[in-house]
């Protein structure tokens, strides 16, 4: 099935795409058919900068278990950062 389901969120950081590094401004996360991965469905993440054209994109198509492991690793890594290195969110 095509899920069409898409979460979009703002981002601040950089990514390395086909033409080198670029500032990342947005991300889309969705569970749908992959272009390349050999699976029926994958958890897909695009880190993008629409102002630089559609080619400014870092794309991932991950097996659901891999995606969950990656998400947990990201959270675990952030939780173990020494105090004072992550600025508090404004407001």
């Amino acid at each position, binding site marked *: 099935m095509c899920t069409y389901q898409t979460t979009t969120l703002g981002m601040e950081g950089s990514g390395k795409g086909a033409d080198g590094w670029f500032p990342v401004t947005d991300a889309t996360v969705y569970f749908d058919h992959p272009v390349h991965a050999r699976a029926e469905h994958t958890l897909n993440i695009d880190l993008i900068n629409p102002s630089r054209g559609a080619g400014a994109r870092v*794309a991932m198509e991950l097996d659901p278990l891999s995606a969950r492991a990656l998400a947990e690793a990201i959270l675990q890594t952030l939780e173990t950062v020494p105090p004072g290195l992550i600025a508090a969110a404004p407001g």
Partner: protein
Amino acid sequence: MSDAMRAETVAITGHGQDTIEAYLAQPLDGDPTGGVVVIHHMPGYDEGTKEITRKFAAHGYLAICPNLYTREAPGASPDDAAAAARALGGVPDDRLVGDVGGAAAHLRSLASSNGRVATIGYCSGGRQSFLAACSLDLDAAVDCYGAFVTRPTPEGFPLSFGPVVDLAPNLSCPLLGLFGAEDQYPSPEEVAELEKALTEAGKEFDFHIYEGAGHAFFATNRPSYRPEAANDGWERIFEFFGPNLATR
């Protein structure tokens, strides 16, 4: 009959008089023939869809696939363009109708056109093929597993994918529907709802639901490919186009 064909990227006039990219394949024997507008699936104007477009030309039809993502991502690779279109919420229905109408007009303007035009679409393009056939004057339409024709999209989906079944009384041509029994979007229940609406509207249609097949059973490069369903589906498509696109 010669089997030579020419296939190339062309510029056509789409919705709002915008110039959009399209992939055109045409037999070179010059005999008058019908045309097919191929509506690509959500992953975009990709290699597989261009192959389908050439298949219609190999069977003697003029065929064109408009790049529905031209505006979001001019010149981008198909996967980047699909990602950009998704991030923006997909293709609006009115723009789709305008682009398919422009593609149909382009086919009819070709010297070897007999004036008759069909649409065919896969996945999201299946819904769009039905939408186009309810909005434009066409001679045949094929809906390959298009979802969200009779039912609204769940929360979190792009707004542009609303149900279009209410347009059934406006269907301008016979409709062929090819679906998988194991598909959830559209589910067999949703297909039955569309059948009911078409029957009530007195429209000509022919639906086939393949056992052992789910979504995207025509896609030869995906694990969802089901050769038996796809081969039978192709036979149905050409049987359907034969009389409906014949020169009169």
